[in-house]
């Protein structure tokens, strides 16, 4: 199954606006995307509550998986999204 690792770039960690953007993007892929913290169990990347509850802070490493058509490209996009600092970009 296609898999990627990403480092959380958001200075506030993967919650608030960065988590919302990520979940919206994961949902938009139409694929069953999962996200896991190092040594953690994978959770549904389309679930904002599950993603926030990961508590992935700035610099945390996460693993994404997805299956189906276009999974490779979708994962690449999601990794990019996770690695930008949205707050710095907005300021």
């Amino acid at each position, binding site marked *: 199954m296609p898999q990627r690792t990403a480092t959380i770039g958001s200075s506030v960690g993967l919650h608030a*606006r960065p988590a919302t953007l990520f979940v919206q993007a994961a949902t938009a892929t139409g694929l069953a995307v999962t996200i896991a913290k190092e040594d953690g169990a994978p959770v549904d990347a389309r*679930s904002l509550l*599950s993603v926030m509850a990961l508590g992935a802070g700035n610099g945390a490493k996460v693993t994404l998986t997805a299956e189906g058509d276009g999974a490779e490209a979708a994962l690449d996009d999601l990794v990019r999204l996770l690695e930008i600092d949205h707050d710095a970009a907005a300021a």
Partner: protein
Amino acid sequence: MDVQQDRGQSPVTAPEMLTGTGASTGTAVGPVAVMSPPPALPERRPQAVDAAAETARAAAALERVADLLQERAAAADSEASAILGAQALMARDPQLAANIAKEIEGGEPAEWALDTAVTGYQELLRSAGGYLAERAADLDDIRNRTMAVLLDAPMPGLPDPGHPFVLVADDLAPADTAQLDPATVLAIVTRRGGPTSHTAILARSLGIPAVIACVGAERLADGTPVAVDGDTGEVVVRPDAERVEAAAQRAELRRKVLETSVGPGRTEDGHSVKLLLNVGAEDPDAAGAHDCEGVGLLRTEFLFLDRETEPTPEEQYESYARLFRAFGDRAVTVRTLDAGSDKPLAFADQGEEPNPALGVRGFRITRAMPRLLERQLAAIARAVDATGARVRVMAPMIATPAEAAEFAGLAREAGLAEVGVMIEVPAAALLADRILEQVDFVSIGTNDLSQYTLAADRMLDTLPGLLDPWQPALLRLVQETGSAGERLSKAVGVCGEAAADPLLALVLVGLGVNSLSMSAPALPAVRYALARHSLQACRDLAALAVASAGPEEARAAVRAAASPEVAAL
């Protein structure tokens, strides 16, 4: 007791007067709109028969709530829109739906399944602490709304009758008040709440008249006309034409008078009393646009709360510099991080404390994390260098002259010239002279000083009388501090909510206070009151207040002796 159940038993129909505590000055007349309380689970739990139908019912209710939140997000400004959008996403959360379906499979009806699934996520978020713990409150909102749909109960939350209204509620939560629009909410009446409660502070900061702890408010029904007096605490139900006219005239007079009240703060005889602004997370440029002589209290917590890690020195520097620039040559008083107790930080958690208000908070955090304050002071000093602004720094929760000296040493070492401390602990007020020997100025935080002097928890709404800022004991401590300032020729300010009450502001000035810091809507009325009293008149009013038997008597005595133009505002 809740508003919903009580209403209808003995509705208010004839002209009648309800009485509560005036919590935010001003008068208003308008129709009532009741904020419905969150629906509770029914007492009887029906037998769930058709799991598929129950799951579909729960899904439909969540979908409706998500749509509703999405609609409101589309209508809101960008910041509120992002929050509402995230809430809509939570209502559409596939895992939440899956957990609800699992509960229903186990035999629960939709309402109970919703409650259990939401509680599960809340526990998960609360155990993570910090920012995530606060998101648990967002889930409350989703549960309450979805429950209302499932039970066919009125939607909880702020009413939206489509015209300006007097908001009537049991009490307001921070989430409710954040969305209050002063253009549509004419006044606020709550059955519970205290003078330092969230409702009261917010109403004052928005300039909305408010009556709290109002007995009988639960009997007010949608559409009933009421006249609200935020000074006397009176709520007249179905007021006659005469009273409506009087209230309208008073509101008009107030508007006119306040429009013409501009410029620096002066007593009638020209004695300067600096009128300053309390500033937190708001936009620096908007804050700087207010007619004030500077910032009397910059709450730097907004930079630190809601975060997992400490803001970087660079980030802090940029925020401070932006604010300093917005105020140009007007002085900005920066309060260093006031966390702990009711404002816990994820990265500076002090653990569970049995009495958080008496625990490691304010300057005391320095004991556990000395570098935190040093980094903040360095960032402030850097912003001062870059902007050339006139900046004063002060530490919160100082109890002893030794602590004041310690803070002054750290601040001066960082290169900051004007150093002060907050007076919010009675011990500090009693030794204000010795504290003033260590620093350049002090600022009295009346809300905390009141809590510690009267031994009454600010977070409780059951002790409103004790937390009244007119308590003579509190005024005596202000007097102690003011006299010390006069003897040593050092500045004494007040930055608590007390400074925003025009009559009490006169008393504070009479007690030796020479700057008053408040939220922007309160500035014109305080400025107007000052301009109509000489310094000696303020001293006379102060003597009356301190000598009074209690807060009610103090308020009445000062109102009677003050300029009638000010008392009539």
